[in-house]
């Protein structure tokens, strides 16, 4: 084996793609070749899937806060209740993909119990009602540690729970998928369903954050102002 390679070779611009990405491309191309679906179908489906967001689940929680009868339905049959927020779990995509036919359960927080959801096996997530998982939800780091050191991991998300609140981790490893229904926060008295929906962010529905009046997004985009702005 020669040892005359260039030690100063530049780092590659793009990392290698993972085995799973290569597998996805291979399977997709075979399906297109066999005519199971077309490239255009795939593009449409991808666009559809990427547009599903947490809003229906947020609205479900907001409706529960306002309507005890609806909440009863959510706690006993969340699949039926999700129709009221525009999600048909029994025909989740209209495309016949099987991976999202799952059961939906809602974990109700109380002033003394806080739930947080994980899938330690992979990244099971109620996609029809929440959309795609955030990247961190899929990482082995989150999956391994949240079951064992939940309070420490929640603190890393900025959620420090007092000792009188019990933490209950839900490892969703079978055919049930979960969302968390947080306690309605103080300062929201008299709010409308639309106002309440806005503060139930995705992270609140996973259980790594609590709703707060005024916080309507998980993402606060930092604005880096130019130090020496050009004058035109």
């Amino acid at each position, binding site marked *: 084996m020669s040892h005359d390679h260039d030690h100063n070779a530049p780092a590659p611009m793009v990392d290698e793609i993972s085995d799973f990405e290569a597998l996805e491309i291979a399977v997709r191309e075979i399906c297109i070749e066999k005519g199971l679906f077309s490239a255009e179908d795939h593009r449409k489906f991808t666009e559809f899937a990427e547009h599903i967001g947490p809003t229906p689940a947020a609205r479900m929680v907001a409706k529960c806060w306002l309507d005890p009868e609806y909440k009863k339905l959510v706690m006993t049959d969340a699949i039926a209740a999700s129709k009221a927020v525009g999600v048909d*779990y029994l025909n989740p995509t209209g495309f016949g993909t099987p991976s999202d036919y799952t059961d939906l359960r809602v974990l109700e927080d109380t002033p003394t119990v806080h739930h947080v959801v994980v899938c330690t096996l992979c990244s099971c997530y109620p996609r029809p009602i929440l959309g795609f998982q955030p990247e961190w939800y899929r990482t082995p780091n989150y999956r391994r540690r949240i079951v064992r050191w939940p309070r420490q991991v929640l603190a890393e998300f900025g959620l420090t729970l007092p000792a009188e609140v019990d933490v209950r981790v839900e490892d969703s490893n079978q055919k049930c998928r979960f969302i968390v229904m947080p306690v309605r926060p103080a300062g929201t008295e008299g709010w409308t369903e639309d106002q309440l929906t806005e503060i139930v962010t995705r992270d609140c529905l996973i259980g790594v954050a609590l709703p707060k009046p005024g916080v309507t997004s998980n993402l606060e985009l930092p604005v880096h102002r130019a130090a020496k702005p050009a004058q035109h």
Partner: protein
Amino acid sequence: MSQHDRTHHASIATGKGDPQCFEGTAGGPPKFKVGERVRIKDMPDIFYTRCQVYTRGAVGEVAVVTHESPAPEDEAWGHVDKSEWFYIVRFKQTDLWPEYPAAFANDTLQTEFSERWLEAV
């Protein structure tokens, strides 16, 4: 040439859901009730399981009797003719992790098992 029917699953689950499409196929009522104490068996798992190692041997309490479905150890291989009841079991964190702080002894973890993994305590 063997042909695998790739639309089989969608055809049984659309309009019903999965696991709901397996309702009534476990061949009897659930063996355990909500509130019952159960131990997770430490059985060998060859090739595929969804029973996490961190729960093996631990004792918990049935929190929810969820549904009927083929066990993942069978379903992974396309064997869907036999179903089992599934249970969400709640554990005290201090029973799962020896180093879990005693100050938070009321913290819990829930996860789901098919009936074959559970035994009465």
